[in-house]
């Protein structure tokens, strides 16, 4: 067996073991990959509600007066105009426009923000921020103190309502404070699955109880990182370290939507230049003509020429075929055919727009059974 002793574990590790989860390393952490099976967990999340242990992700609180602090330069999100009680997805870039991390910024109060980052990059993010930020800014890494559970799926709103005994009236990308287990917790209407869903932030000391309480609901099942990956890929969400990294820009990754050009940020000049000169490569999404699935690093062949490689590829449980995405060095239009090649394997695929899966409940104001559940 592999030596997992060097890995970090979330407070829920024994819960996962008791549930019979398969565990594997992810971003320096020993995490549950699956419980009952990836496809079953995936389908359950698309129809009911899945609970994910996301305690490995990093969180920072930042206090700053933006008239004196240089905090706003660090991220592509406009911290000044972000209203209190809302959050936004964006990036921390290097001077070359490469993505140091993708993140979500929460506006807690006039002078306070919370930033949620990837597990594997938490420490390097902190280093980068501390190096850059001036004295008018107070940064605290609260990752070891704060736990995070994601509840995702069309039934997640109903489940939460039963838990907190009040209606969760949160619009997409907003958050609020709710009382649960005698503790004030943050619930945000966000997620990584394309379904109606929530992310719950609560001190680690209560996380075992919270896990049990949420799982006690008949419509909730635990979901591992395996299904988290297929769920996010079906929506076309990027995974940091695989689809995007320090050497890819948000423009290449097709994520310009999350860039606020009206503000200043590190990397802006490089992105502007890239836009003027034309992108050296861009992300495309493709669907295989069969159950055979493209995999990371397969070559993308267009009209007989090797034009790039697959960054993410998997079987899509919802569509019943292989799906994937990757960068290509020339324009390949939606509807065109590509071959995904590795050794003797060659998969015919068609270029499509994301999302692959279009029936997600993410934008639904509430699940269809909101008042009967």
């Amino acid at each position, binding site marked *: 067996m592999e030596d997992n002793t060097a890995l970090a574990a979330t407070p829920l590790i024994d819960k996962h073991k008791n549930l019979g989860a398969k565990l594997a390393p992810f971003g320096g952490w020993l995490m549950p990959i699956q419980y009952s*099976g*990836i*496809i*079953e967990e995936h389908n359950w999340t698309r129809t009911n509600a899945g609970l994910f242990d996301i305690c490995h992700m990093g969180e920072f609180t930042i206090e700053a007066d933006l008239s004196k602090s240089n905090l706003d330069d660090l991220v592509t999100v406009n911290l000044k105009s972000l209203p209190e009680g809302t959050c936004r997805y964006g990036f921390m870039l290097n001077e070359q426009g490469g993505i140091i991390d993708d993140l979500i910024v929460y506006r807690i109060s006039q002078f306070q923000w919370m930033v949620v980052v990837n597990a594997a990059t938490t420490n390097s993010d902190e280093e980068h921020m501390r190096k850059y930020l001036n004295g008018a800014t107070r940064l605290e890494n609260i990752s070891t103190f704060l736990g995070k559970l994601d509840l995702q799926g069309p039934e997640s709103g109903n489940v939460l309502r039963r838990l907190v005994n009040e209606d969760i009236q949160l619009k997409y990308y907003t958050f609020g404070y709710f009382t649960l287990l005698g503790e004030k917790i943050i619930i945000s209407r966000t997620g990584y699955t394309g379904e109606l869903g929530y992310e719950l932030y609560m001190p680690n000391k209560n996380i075992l109880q919270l896990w049990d309480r949420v799982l006690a609901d008949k419509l909730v099942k635990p979901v591992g990182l*395996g299904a988290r990956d297929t769920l996010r890929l079906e929506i076309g969400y990027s995974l940091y370290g695989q689809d995007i990294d320090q050497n890819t820009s948000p423009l290449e990754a097709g994520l310009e939507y999350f860039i606020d050009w009206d503000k200043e940020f590190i990397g802006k000049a490089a992105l502007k230049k890239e836009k003027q000169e034309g992108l050296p490569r861009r992300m495309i999404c493709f669907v295989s003509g069969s159950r055979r*699935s493209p995999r990371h690093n397969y070559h993308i062949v267009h009209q007989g020429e090797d034009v790039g490689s697959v960054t993410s590829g998997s*079987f899509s449980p919802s569509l019943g075929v292989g799906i994937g995405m990757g960068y290509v060095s020339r324009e390949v239009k939606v509807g065109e055919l590509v071959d995904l090649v590795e050794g003797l394997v060659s998969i015919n695929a068609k270029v499509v727009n994301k999302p692959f899966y279009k029936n997600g409940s993410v934008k639904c104001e509430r699940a269809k059974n909101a008042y009967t559940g």
Partner: protein
Amino acid sequence: MLIPDNLLYTKDHEWAKIEGDNARLGITDFAQSSLGDITFIDLPKIGANVKQSDLYATVESVKAASDVYAPLSGEVLKVNDELVNHPELVNKSPYESGWFSIIKISDATEKNKLMTPAQYKGYVEGLSK
């Protein structure tokens, strides 16, 4: 972990069932359990000659593609067409309805290189320690 008494095994977790001059081939319960949900299987063509320990099939799970090696040499007589649309049969029934192929054994002495059920059991137990 199911390890039937009437089969022979490889260290790559394939099994062979001797049926007279032929052998029925598949992957073990340990293999299907490690792979997780199986989503696609690339089987050899009928008439193909496979060689012991050579790549002869590919199994894809949600997470990855894995190679399958032939437990014995021989000519492929039959493949399990059911697996094309129902690869999950390998998860549900790795030794029965999840079989891969039937070959005509070309060298019966190769059987000696395979593990007995008791040997395979010990091998698997060693892996999970």
